[in-house]
């Protein structure tokens, strides 16, 4: 069985990350999943969430907004609308976005509910990743 796993995170704005890792965990639309080297090949859509990657003793978190993942035994490719490493997250902006989304949800008049919730979710996860780096 292969012992290495390559993780590529690709967005329309370019390659965000390409690294050898020991383990990857991500949030699929049907639930969270973890990938170790030698995983059964599979394709899934992703929810707004975080990708957790372990390498040596380190754990890193990457924010990913919806997209999908293609898993092969020695490679994980994640295609997302946008993705940010924890150090690349603009916390101020995320907080502002959270406030805006909450505001809109509270007023709840003629708003695109799905959009507001999605934007709230994005902001919340971004903040989680950026601030504690140890979410949930």
């Amino acid at each position, binding site marked *: 069985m292969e012992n290495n796993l390559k993780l590529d995170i*690709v*967005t*329309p*704005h*370019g*390659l965000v990350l390409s690294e050898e890792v020991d383990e990857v965990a991500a949030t*699929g*639309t*049907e639930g969270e999943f973890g990938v170790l080297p030698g995983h*059964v*090949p*599979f*394709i*899934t*859509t992703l929810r707004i969430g975080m990708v957790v990657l372990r390498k040596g003793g380190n754990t890193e978190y990457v924010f990913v907004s919806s997209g*999908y993942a*293609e898993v092969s035994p020695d490679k994980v*490719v994640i*295609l997302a*609308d*946008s993705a940010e490493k924890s150090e690349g997250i603009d916390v101020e902006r995320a907080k502002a976005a959270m406030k805006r989304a909450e505001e809109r949800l509270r007023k709840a008049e003629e708003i695109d509910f799905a959009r507001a919730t999605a934007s709230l979710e994005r902001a919340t996860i971004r903040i989680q990743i950026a601030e504690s780096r140890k979410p949930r």
Partner: protein
Amino acid sequence: MPGLKEIRKRIGSVKSTKQITKAMKMVSAAKFRKAQTRILELRPYADKMNSVLSNLAGTVETGHPLLELRPRKKIEIIVMTGDKGLCGAFNTNVMKAAFKLIKETREEGIEVSVSAIGKKGNDLFKRRGVVLRKSWVGISGRISYLNAQEIIGDIIENYTNEIFDEVLLVYNEFRSALVQKVATARLLPLSPVKAAGAEAQESMADFLYEPSQQDIFDKLLPKNLEIQVFRALLESQASEEAARMTSMENATKAADDMIASLTLQYNKARQASITKELMDIVGGVEALKQ
């Protein structure tokens, strides 16, 4: 013949114009390079998406509403221009092609609705009295994937509600820094996704899908559209800056020529006035002698 002072003034003004055009050329060159890199950055994403889509196409029902061909009763034409001028024939070319397409489609007896992306197109359509269904302005220069999502969201919504049966996009395709070509692309209905060869299919056969293959396929189709529009936006941007670069280069050259000819004129005028003064003096001396 204009006086010395006027010529000198004109030389001055042409020189400062030249500096502006030169600076604009540099700015465009920088923006152009940036747009070009972004096109390159999009490529891995687009390629990956296409390979997954074509792999799936062989295994799923492809009767998605976005793929379905309907009788062409009403067509939406989206015209993509820049927000700014001073870029040669860039905007004019797109608009010419757009007007031609609109006219031809109407002659076929098909209803046409028009939308504009970019301020220049928006303004020109309004001046010509064309009613726009929708217009997106002010996005060139800071194009983000969200713009493409917004545009596609609107289009898909109207398309599935059968407000129009076909969507065409007229934009400047990017060939190279020197060549831009106006292109018309059909966004909807999507051209059928070609199923990948048997070899690739086989390698995909072992995959597990979550949710089902069908769901993933259906979800990827709109994404694919978003990418097409995003790419068109970037290409249009790159073409615009390339066109601006060329036209500013030409303007700088023209300014150089003008400065040369004005300098010549200036020297001639100066010499003429010196000769005239000399003749006056000589004439005066001769008169005194007598």
